[in-house]
């Protein structure tokens, strides 16, 4: 690495910026109150907003799930018409995948990643804020379709040619396509941002193999996003051009091949599955060692199995298409690759189990959720193996057996991990603990409801109930199990309510308690070295890292006989600086303005070209405003050079939004 001892040129030409950009907006100021959320670029604020928005969408998606289950309570229910049911189940899937599970992963990634690697912020703070607003506006845009003629009705997989205007003349699918393009921009931007953050901004001493596992899994997730998102972007553009301009991509009469959509969708769609689950794997890999009071078992195996899952994740997409007429060779190849992806997954499960072995398990709520994940994900993984067997899959695919499988993976896997993460990191983020008593109720009710809902789906699936049926007839043997599943769904809803009540009650209670200690869980990783809640400047000074569980080994030292002895109290280690002298990126209006332009263009594409022009004008203005606004307020700091943003047509990575980084240990 080059050393900065060469004589550096001073900026040539005086800075011409006086804080005004394009003569309209004055520079956003770092303030408290709602403005600091709108214009803030702090990764922690962005992370919290991601989480809050995702929970809001969870309530919408959950309500859609309840509608589905109420419709299927009994045979020939008339609650929803076939048309509305199709919209509801499509939007349920889309919402849960793109607006709930992915953003909760992003919430944890945004909040924790810089803290876990000892950085002050992400590499491109303004891009980070932009990616959140993009996601939020995209999600809202998608859901406004309910008010503007109905939601998309083609399923979240949106197979061609059923996604064409001929078969779905309402605007629902247009909203779906454009909304997903917008949220895709969000994920794309944030993936580049977070990868650069991890690769470039680790604290001194933190080599790649000393990174916490959550950081590792998030890094892998972001690589999956980086390489999978362009594929769905192309698919979405092809569909948009087909629907809006009449392009021939999925028009059978023009010789289109409908499998093109399926390939493009699943080349994205399968890595998507892994990128939804891996952040959760990362979270429980943080939780299990803390509550077992042992290091994670087989750190390198857990890391590399995550990497292996990601690699193999790109080679299994066609297992979604075993019955679509791929040809026997393709089917067999993808069948085998799919089977063997179970190996790294199994390695992870066994390592988690081994982490618990011999520990002193403290059954707090995060651990309960983690154990829930291990067992439920095992069930989901094993049913996954059963459909990797192509001949068996011909009996299973598109039945409720698949619905059961992927809910065990994504709900029992990803969501349980996220719930564990919420309970574990709540004091870190908000400075108060969630009630453990309610947390335990929350877990058990969720666990019961989850199994009641999705367990019976294995049965009705094997007995022949197809997915995406708005109704079913009596005498097929589906009735009783559907009733159990519906009861289960309401049980899940109860546990979600418990969680929200817990947040409110615990907040109220926390006011009569002293602030939560610095280290409520006796935790291990770097993020706990900062006070709770995390101050705006994260670290001061930036710590130097020597081991994976750096915080833990500052508290405990190894004794001669291999045991550990407590040598320091957490509160003596935790930083208590006032952050004076820490240089932070300045807030900016431009991320939200730029993101706001995107749905305007999208509405324009659906309803009127004039809106396109308006949205385009907003986007161009925002881009130039952004480009000519230095990332740091020149009035607020010494004279930095100026940055330039090069935006390509996706409005992403080319941004030159350099956060001034301090990596040298200071103080």
């Amino acid at each position, binding site marked *: *690495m*080059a*050393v*900065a001892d*060469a*004589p*550096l*040129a*001073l900026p*040539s*030409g005086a800075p011409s910026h006086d804080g005004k950009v394009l003569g309209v907006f004055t520079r956003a100021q770092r303030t408290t109150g709602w403005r600091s959320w709108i214009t803030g670029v702090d990764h922690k604020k962005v992370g919290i907003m991601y989480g809050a928005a995702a929970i809001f969408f969870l309530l919408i998606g959950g309500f859609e799930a309840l509608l589905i289950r109420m419709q299927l309570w009994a045979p020939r229910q008339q609650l929803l018409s076939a048309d509305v049911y199709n919209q509801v189940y499509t939007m349920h899937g889309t919402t849960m995948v793109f607006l709930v599970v992915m953003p909760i992963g992003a919430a944890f990634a945004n909040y924790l990643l810089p803290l876990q690697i000892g950085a002050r912020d992400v590499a491109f703070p303004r891009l980070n804020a932009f990616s959140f607003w993009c996601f939020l506006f995209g999600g809202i845009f998608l859901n406004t379709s309910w008010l503007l003629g109905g939601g998309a009705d083609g399923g979240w997989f949106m197979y061609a040619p059923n996604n064409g205007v001929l078969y779905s003349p309402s605007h629902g699918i247009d909203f779906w396509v454009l909304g997903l393009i917008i949220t895709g921009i969000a994920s794309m931007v944030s993936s580049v941002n977070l990868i650069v953050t991890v*690769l470039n901004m680790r604290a001194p001493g933190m080599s790649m193999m000393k990174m916490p596992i959550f950081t590792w899994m998030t890094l892998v997730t972001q690589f999956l996003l*980086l*390489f999978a998102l362009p*594929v769905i972007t192309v698919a979405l553009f092809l569909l948009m051009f087909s629907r809006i301009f009449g392009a021939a991509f999925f028009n*059978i*009469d023009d*010789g*289109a*091949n409908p*499998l093109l959509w399926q*390939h493009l969708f699943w*080349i994205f769609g399968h890595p998507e599955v892994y990128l939804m689950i891996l952040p959760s794997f990362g979270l429980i890999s943080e939780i299990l060692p803390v509550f077992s009071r042992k290091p994670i078992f087989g750190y390198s195996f857990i890391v590399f199995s995550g990497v292996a899952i990601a690699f193999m994740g*790109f*080679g299994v997409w*066609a297992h979604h298409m075993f019955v*679509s*007429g*791929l*040809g*026997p060779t*393709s089917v067999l190849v993808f069948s085998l690759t799919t089977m063997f992806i179970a190996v790294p997954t199994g390695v992870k499960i066994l390592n988690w189990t081994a982490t618990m072995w011999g520990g002193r398990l403290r059954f707090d709520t995060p651990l309960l959720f983690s154990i829930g994940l291990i067992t439920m994900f095992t069930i989901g993984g094993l049913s996954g193996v059963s459909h990797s067997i192509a001949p068996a899959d011909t009996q299973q695919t598109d039945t409720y057996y698949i619905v059961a499988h992927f809910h065990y993976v994504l709900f029992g896997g990803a969501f349980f991990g996220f719930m564990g993460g919420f309970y574990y990191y709540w004091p870190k983020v908000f400075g108060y603990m969630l009630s453990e008593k309610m947390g335990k109720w929350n877990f058990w009710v969720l666990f019961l409801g989850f199994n009641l809902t999705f367990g019976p789906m294995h049965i009705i699936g094997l007995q022949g109930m197809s997915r995406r049926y708005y109704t079913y007839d009596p005498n097929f043997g589906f009735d009783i199990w559907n009733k159990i599943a519906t009861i289960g769904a309401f049980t899940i809803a109860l546990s979600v309510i418990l969680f929200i009540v817990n947040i409110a009650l615990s907040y109220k209670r926390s006011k009569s308690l002293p602030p939560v200690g610095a280290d409520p869980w006796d935790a291990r990783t770097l993020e706990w070295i900062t006070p709770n809640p995390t101050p705006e400047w994260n670290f001061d000074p930036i710590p130097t890292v020597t081991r994976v569980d750096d915080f833990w080994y500052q508290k405990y030292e190894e004794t001669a006989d291999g045991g550990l002895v407590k040598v320091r109290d957490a509160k003596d280690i935790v930083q208590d600086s006032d952050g004076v002298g820490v240089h932070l990126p300045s807030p900016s209006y431009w991320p939200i303005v730029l993101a706001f332009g995107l749905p305007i263009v999208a509405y324009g594409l659906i309803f009127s070209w004039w809106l396109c022009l308006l949205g385009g004008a907003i986007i161009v203005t925002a881009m130039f405003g952004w480009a000519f606004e230095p990332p740091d307020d020149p009035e607020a700091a010494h004279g930095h050079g100026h940055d330039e943003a090069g935006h390509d047509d996706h409005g992403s990575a080319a941004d030159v939004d350099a956060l001034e980084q301090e990596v040298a240990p200071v103080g």
Partner: protein
Amino acid sequence: MAHPQQPPVPTSVLDGAVEDYPSDWKYWRVAIILFVLTAIEVSTYVLADSVFSDSRVLIATLLFLMVVKFWAVAWYFMHLKFDKRILTVAFYSGLALAMVVYLCMLLAFRYFGDDGMICPSESLNCITEG
């Protein structure tokens, strides 16, 4: 606008390159090579009936020239030769992934069949496997 003359800044300081970027003359030489390669590419169009009557030879030649040109631009103009290896890894991992994935996809479409075409849908009997 006039700029005060500043002492040149070594590129290695600026961007962590492992060796200094080459002189302009080197870029010109690469450009000349690119020009020649492009000329050969275009000449295949003229010579399609004589020298390259075998379409497999033609395609192989064109692909080879394409790869060399791609590599030359990336290696010299994009400074992959001079910069840290991780940039090469980042870019080529995306490229390699793209090639493998889309090649598999084309294979799944049985694209590289007798005539390299997928069947027009009007003749339903064309694709019969499955």
